[in-house]
C-alpha cells in the first residue's frame, strides 16, 4: 500500500472515530438542556468546549485531507508531511482531552480572553488547553505550507489564482480545485498566524502577569476562528468541484466568473470576521460597516457561483445518485442554505436581535453538518468506492442519506425555532420563563438519534470499502 493511500485511510478513520465521540458530546448537551440527567450538569461547559473545538478542528483537518488528496492529482504534496500532521493532530487532541476531562476546562471553543484565566479550573488545565491549540496550530501550519509549496512548484501565483482567466485568457488550464485550494491555503496561513499571535499573548500573560488588551485579543481570536471554519468549507468545496464531473459526465472547468469570485474571497475574507464583534462597543464603528459589507462580499459570489454551477451541472445529467454523490450534492446545497442564515445574521440590524441566541448555533451547524460534513463524508465514500468498486445498493444508500438529512435538518430546525423564541445559546439549563428551550431540546434529541443511526449505517457502508481497500 502506498503512503498516500495509507494516509488518506488514516484520516478517514480518525474522522469517523472523532465524529462519533464529539457528536455524543453534542447529544449530551441537548440532554442536559432538556432537563434530563441533571446530576451531570456541571459537565455541560467542559463538553461544550470539547465539542466545539473538537468539531471545528476535526472538520478542518478532514477537509485539508480531502483537498490534499485532490491536489495530489495535479501536484506533489509531501506524504510525509501529511503523516506528520496526523501525529501532530492526535497529540494535540490528547492535550485537549486532558484539559477538558481531567481539568474541566470550559472556556468555549474560541477560549475568549480573559475567560481561560478566570474560569475557576486549575491553571494546568488552561495550560494544557493552550498547548493543545499550539501543537495543532503549528502542525497545521506546516501542513498547509507544504500544500502551498506543492502548488507553487507547478503553477505561478497568477496561474494558481486564475488571474489569466480574469484577464480574458482561456489557458493554461487550472482546475478549480487548485484555484480554490490556493485561495484557501493563503488565507489559511493568515488564520494560523493570528492563532499563533493570540497564543503568544496568552503565554506572555501567564509568565509575566502583564495583561492583554481584550479588544485586540478578541479581534485576533475571531480572525483565527472565523477563517478556520470558512476555509474548511472552501477546501471541501474544492474537492467537490473536482469529483463532480466524474458523476455528471460534464466538465466543470475554471473560467472568468469562478476566478473573480474566488479572488474576491481572498481579498475580503480577512475582513468578514468583524461580524463577530458587532456587540463590542469599543470596536471602531467603521469596522462594523466593513464587517457587514465584507461578510456579504466574501460569501455571496462564491456560494452563488458554486451552487448554481453545481445545479447546472446536474440538471438533466444522467447522474447515478450513489451515496458519495448524493452527500456531496446536498452538502453544497446545505452550504448555500446555511450561508443564507449566516448572511442574515451578519446584517447588523438583525444581529442586534439574534446575537447570542440559538440562531447562531443554528446557522453554523447548518453549513457544518449539512454542508461541510456531508461534502467530506461524500468525498470519503467516493474515495473508498473508487478504490474498491464494490457493488452499490442504491436503495439502501438512499435510506442512509435520507436518515442523515432528516435527522440533521430536524435537529437544526429546533435550533432555529429556539433562536426565533429568543432562547439564548450556551445555557446549560434554561430558566423557567424560557422553558420552551428545554422542550425543543427534547425534540432535537429524537432527530439527533435519527442522524446518528444514519451515520452509523454510513460508516458501515463506507467502512466495508475502507477495509477492503486495505489490500489495494
Amino acid at each position: 500500500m502506498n503512503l498516500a493511500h495509507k494516509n488518506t485511510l488514516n484520516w478517514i478513520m480518525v474522522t469517523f472515530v472523532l465524529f462519533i465521540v464529539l457528536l455524543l458530546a453534542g447529544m449530551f448537551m441537548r440532554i442536559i438542556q432538556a432537563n434530563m440527567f441533571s446530576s451531570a450538569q456541571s459537565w455541560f461547559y467542559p463538553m461544550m468546549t470539547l465539542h466545539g473545538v473538537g468539531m471545528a478542528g476535526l472538520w478542518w483537518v478532514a477537509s485539508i485531507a480531502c483537498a490534499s488528496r485532490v491536489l495530489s492529482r495535479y501536484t506533489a504534496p509531501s506524504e510525509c508531511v501529511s503523516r506528520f500532521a496526523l501525529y501532530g493532530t492526535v497529540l494535540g487532541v490528547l492535550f485537549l482531552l486532558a484539559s477538558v476531562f481531567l481539568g474541566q476546562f470550559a472556556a468555549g471553543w474560541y477560549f475568549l480572553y480573559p475567560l481561560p484565566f478566570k474560569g475557576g479550573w486549575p491553571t494546568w488545565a488552561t495550560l494544557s488547553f493552550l498547548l493543545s491549540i499550539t501543537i495543532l496550530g503549528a502542525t497545521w501550519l506546516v501542513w498547509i505550507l507544504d500544500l502551498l509549496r506543492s502548488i507553487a512548484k507547478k503553477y505561478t501565483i497568477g496561474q494558481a489564482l486564475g488571474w489569466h482567466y480574469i484577464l480574458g485568457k482561456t489557458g493554461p488550464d487550472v482546475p478549480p480545485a487548485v484555484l480554490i485550494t490556493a485561495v484557501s491555503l493563503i488565507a489559511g496561513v493568515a488564520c494560523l498566524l493570528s492563532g499563533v499571535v493570540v497564543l503568544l499573548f496568552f503565554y506572555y500573560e501567564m509568565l509575566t502577569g502583564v495583561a492583554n488588551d481584550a479588544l485586540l485579543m478578541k479581534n485576533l481570536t475571531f480572525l483565527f476562528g472565523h477563517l478556520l471554519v470558512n476555509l474548511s468549507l472552501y477546501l471541501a468545496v474544492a474537492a467537490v468541484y473536482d469529483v463532480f464531473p466524474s458523476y455528471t459526465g460534464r466538465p466543470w472547468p475554471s473560467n472568468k466568473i469562478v476566478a473573480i469570485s474566488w479572488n474576491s474571497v481572498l481579498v475580503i475574507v480577512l475582513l468578514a470576521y468583524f461580524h463577530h464583534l458587532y456587540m463590542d462597543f469599543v470596536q471602531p464603528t467603521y469596522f462594523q460597516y466593513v464587517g457587514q459589507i465584507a461578510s456579504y462580499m466574501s460569501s455571496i459570489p462564491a456560494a452563488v457561483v458554486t451552487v448554481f454551477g453545481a445545479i447546472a451541472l446536474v440538471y438533466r445529467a444522467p447522474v447515478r445518485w450513489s451515496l458519495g454523490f448524493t452527500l456531496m450534492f446536498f452538502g453544497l446545497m446545505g452550504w448555500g442554505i446555511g450561508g443564507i442564515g449566516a448572511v442574515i445574521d451578519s446584517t447588523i440590524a438583525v444581529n442586534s436581535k439574534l446575537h447570542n441566541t440559538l440562531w447562531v448555533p443554528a446557522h453554523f451547524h447548518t453549513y457544518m453538518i449539512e454542508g461541510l460534513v456531508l461534502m467530506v463524508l461524500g468525498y470519503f465514500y467516493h474515495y473508498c468506492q473508487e478504490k474498491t468498486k464494490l457493488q452499490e445498493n442504491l436503495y439502501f444508500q438512499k435510506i442512509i442519506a435520507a436518515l442523515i438529512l432528516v435527522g440533521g435538518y430536524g435537529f437544526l430546525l429546533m435550533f432555529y425555532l429556539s433562536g426565533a423564541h429568543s432562547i439564548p445559546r450556551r445555557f446549560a439549563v434554561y430558566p423557567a420563563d424560557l422553558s420552551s428551550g428545554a422542550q425543543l431540546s427534547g425534540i432535537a434529541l429524537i432527530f439527533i438519534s435519527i442522524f446518528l443511526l444514519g451515520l452509523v449505517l454510513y460508516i458501515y457502508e463506507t467502512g466495508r470499502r475502507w477495509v477492503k481497500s486495505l489490500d489495494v
Partner: protein
Amino acid sequence: MTFNFTSLKSRTVWIKIFLLLTVVFIIAPLKAQEQEKEILEKVSKSLYNQVPDVEISLPNNQKLLLSELWKDKPVLINFFYRECTGTCNPFLRSLKTTVEKVGGISEDYRILSLSFDPKDGPREVAAMAEAVGVEKQKDWMFGTIKPIDIQKISDAIGFWYRLDSKTGQFDHASSITAVRNGKVIRVLLGSLVTPTRFRDMLYELKGTFVPTYSNPGENVLFRCFRVDELSKSVKFGWGMLILFIPGFCALLIAGVLFHKSSHSREPMGLS
C-alpha cells in the same frame, strides 16, 4: 447489501424504537421541566427583595440588628428548628462541609442560621450550633428572632414553613438566601448544598466583574487604543497594527514561496 431492513418485521421494530425515543425524549423533559419550573419560580420570586432589618438575639444574649451583619459583607441566611427530625441537621451539616471545602467565610461572607420555632431559645440554638460543629466559628451565628419578625423575614427571603398538627413537626423549605446590602441576591433551594452551586452563589455575591476592557494606566501589553489624558482624545495604539500582521505575513509568505519555486517549475504550455 445483505440485511433487509425494509421487511415488515423490521419495520415494526423501527416503529417501536421511534415510539420509545419519543417517550424518552419528549415526556421525560416535560416532567423534569415542570419540577424545575416550580423551583425556579419559587427561587426567582424573592430576588432583589428588601430584607426587613430585624433584631437578632444570639445565644450569649447579645442583641444586634441584621443590618449590622450585612453592613460590611454579605450574609447567607437560613432557617432551622432544634426539634427537626427531618432535613435541618443534614442540611446544616452539608452546608458546613461545603463551607469548609469552598472557603471564604469571614473574608467574603457571614452565615446566619435562625430558628423559626418560637419554642427555641438561646440554649436550643447554641445546642444546634454545637451539634453541627460550628459553635467556634465566629462568623457563623445561630440566633433567634421575635415571632412576628419570623413571618416578615420568611416572606422576604422565600422561606416557608407549616406546622403538621399530627406529628408536631414543621414541614418547611430548605434554603439559603444570600443577602447583600439588605437585598436578596440569590436563593439556593434544596436540602443538599453542593460546592458548585455554593461557589456560583459566592461569585454572584461578590459581583465579580470580569473587566472586558482595560482601564487607562493599567499595565497592558499592546492596546488597540490609547487615551490622551490631556486632550481626552482617543488614538490608535500598536494593537491595531498587530491586527494586520497575520494577513500581511500570509501574503508575504505566499509571495516568497511562489517566487522561490519559479526556478524549478516546469513550464506550463497552453493545453
